[in-house]
């Protein structure tokens, strides 16, 4: 079988799965949901970016970051700062003692815009910073930690501490960040009202398309030579190091990639919800993001997107009717995912869907022959093989800790 362009994304099977999720997001959801629900769903989708990033860095890189909220927040805050500056034009804020600066700065007796707010007057620069700021931050953290071989548990605890530092800082520096309320009252994007129904639709589609692109990019990374190295490193770190690779660089790259994905999610979150606050940055938010990824399946990018969506859907519907039950359900979810189905929903699906798919495969003989050809890439296993393979990688990931 000739290697086709599809193999770069994990083969035809993965592409079909991404196509299905694209149809679900871009066609089915907008058809079945009213504007209010669609806005909620859009919010869930922004978490899918974070979950997909975690699949790369935790599932395939073996490094659990408990600070993805930092990057989600950085992306979100960058976007929020741009929108806030736009909302605080001198005409809009004429009643303040210093017109032209955001209202919360005025309340906190600031008389001039802080220097780090200045770049956010320009939209192109904001878009750039949404990606660059978290990437730089992740690079610094990653460089400092991985070059000194801090990993596993220590990495998790330190990222968690950084997330908590970040929250304290944002809440403490009220004049610069809006404090515990965050940056609120965001209405327009370059003069375009983002609160109308039409705008909500546009933003939802933009977010959905961006998510699909992120999933494709993730698949591309995993099936590249780098992706193979990443998996090899997770399973046998020393062996990869002794083969002459700088393991730290591999880890830094995947950590930065995950951070950028989270930040894009954060930026869309701000656009769709209309505010950003420190409660999406801290330790509790960050660890909830890990559960989105774990429920979906820590070894499946697509599964993580479903996981983020379903957990948030369950959270909204349960906490609407039984607010107390949700906390318990969430706790139980943490325990169940670890004890009963460590490969998440994606694992369950591949266990139970394999027989069905095999039946289809035998119905179309030609397909079976093509699928069992000799050139099967490790990234694109046959359905029947996939369970065994993922079991092996879970087990070996656990051994390596």
């Amino acid at each position, binding site marked *: 079988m000739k290697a086709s362009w599809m193999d770069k994304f994990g083969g035809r099977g993965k592409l079909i799965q991404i196509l299905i999720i694209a149809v679900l997001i871009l066609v089915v959801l907008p058809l079945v949901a009213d504007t209010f629900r669609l806005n909620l769903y859009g919010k869930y989708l922004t978490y899918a970016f974070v979950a997909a990033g975690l699949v790369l860095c935790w599932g395939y890189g073996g490094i*659990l970051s*408990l600070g993805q909220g930092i990057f989600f927040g950085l992306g979100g805050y960058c976007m929020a700062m741009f929108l806030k500056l736009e909302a605080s034009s001198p005409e809009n804020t004429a009643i303040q003692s210093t017109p032209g600066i955001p209202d919360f700065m005025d309340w906190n007796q600031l008389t001039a815009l802080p220097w780090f707010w200045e770049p956010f007057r320009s939209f192109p620069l904001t878009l750039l910073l949404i990606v660059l700021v978290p990437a730089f931050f992740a690079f610094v953290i990653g460089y*400092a*930690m991985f070059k*000194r*071989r*801090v990993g*596993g*548990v*220590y990495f*998790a*605890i*330190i990222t*968690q*501490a*950084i997330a*908590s*530092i970040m929250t*304290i*800082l944002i*809440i*403490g520096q009220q004049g610069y960040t809006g404090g515990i309320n965050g940056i609120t009252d965001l209405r327009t994007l370059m003069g375009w009202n983002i609160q109308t129904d039409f705008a909500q639709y546009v933003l939802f589609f933009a977010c959905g398309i961006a998510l699909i692109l992120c999933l494709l990019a993730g698949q591309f990374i995993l099936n590249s030579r780098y992706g193979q190295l990443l998996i090899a490193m997770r399973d046998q770190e020393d062996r990869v190091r002794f083969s002459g690779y700088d393991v730290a660089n591999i880890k830094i790259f995947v950590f930065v990639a995950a951070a950028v994905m989270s930040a894009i999610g954060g930026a869309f979150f701000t656009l769709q919800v209309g505010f950003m606050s420190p409660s999406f940055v801290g*330790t509790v938010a960050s*660890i909830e993001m*890990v*559960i989105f990824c*774990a429920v979906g399946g820590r070894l499946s990018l697509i599964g993580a997107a479903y996981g983020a969506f379903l957990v948030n859907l369950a959270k909204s519907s349960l906490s609407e009717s039984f607010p*107390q039950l949700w*906390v*318990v359900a*969430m*706790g*139980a*979810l*943490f*325990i169940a*995912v*670890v*004890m009963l189905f*460590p490969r998440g929903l994606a694992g369950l699906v591949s266990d139970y869907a394999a027989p069905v798919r095999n039946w289809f495969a035998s119905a179309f003989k030609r397909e079976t022959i093509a699928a069992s050809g000799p050139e099967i890439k490790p990234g694109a296993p046959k359905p029947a093989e996939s369970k065994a393979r993922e079991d092996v990688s879970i087990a070996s990931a*656990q*051994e390596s*800790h």
Partner: protein
Amino acid sequence: MGGYTGEELTAIFLMQGFSGLSLFCVFLLMALGLAIIFGQMGVINMAHGEFLTLGAYITYLVSYAASDVWPFLLDYYFPVAIVFAFLGTFILGYLVERYLIRFLYNRPLDTLLATWGLGLILQQIFRSTFGPREKSVVMPDWLMGSYQATDMVDIPLNGLLVVGITIVLTIAVFILLYRSRWGIKVRATTQNRVMANAAGINTERVDRLTFALGCGIAGVAGAAFTTIASTGPTTGSLYIVDTFLVVVFGGAASLLGTVASAFGIAQSQSILSFFLSGSMAKVITLMTVVIILMLRPQGLFASKVRR
């Protein structure tokens, strides 16, 4: 530091130092149990804060019984409460190890997630049992009041009691781990599980008791905690990230390191918070700790254990 006389500065340092000391006690009491569980067993117990809260609630119940049912016992309830708090959390810890942690050894990141879930569930149980409001214990008369050291410095008695409990507990843990037969078994199991098993140590039993003991210590910590603050469902979880940082900063398997890092973090935070805002003091302290940890990943007192 302009505007303060030397005498005032000394008093400030003493008072802030003492409030730092009670923060130190909270950190250390929590970190002791964690250091045993994380340092010796490699299990990340994110529900540790909830074990502390459970101990505090048990103390509250005992104090409630003492003040409302048998008022004449009010002066003496505290030691009883400590025993109950220890037993309650010890038993819960034993069960948790038996039915949850046991399956997750060698998967430390998964113990982190599972115990976080356990913590959430416990928090909700506390909330539905005791209500979302904070509860305070009834303090016996002899704990009220304060010790007047000089004109400007006075030190509350309950703070002194907590310092006392911390010292006793720390020494007890030291003796248990480094001077008792059981401690030898624990350390042998940590250093080489297979060899320890071969030498006739029942490592499963050791694990179970170690975990339960760590939780029991958290319970005692909770009992001590009630004398300086009131207890709510999320009390323990407020400290969990800081405490983990304390344990890691001190060097996971080193009790001495834990004591030193708890002292350092608590004191710098408390003294800085007089000159800066409380949140900035915390940010600077934690940042320093994180940066030092990046330079010295094994913590201050790395133990020379082969892993």
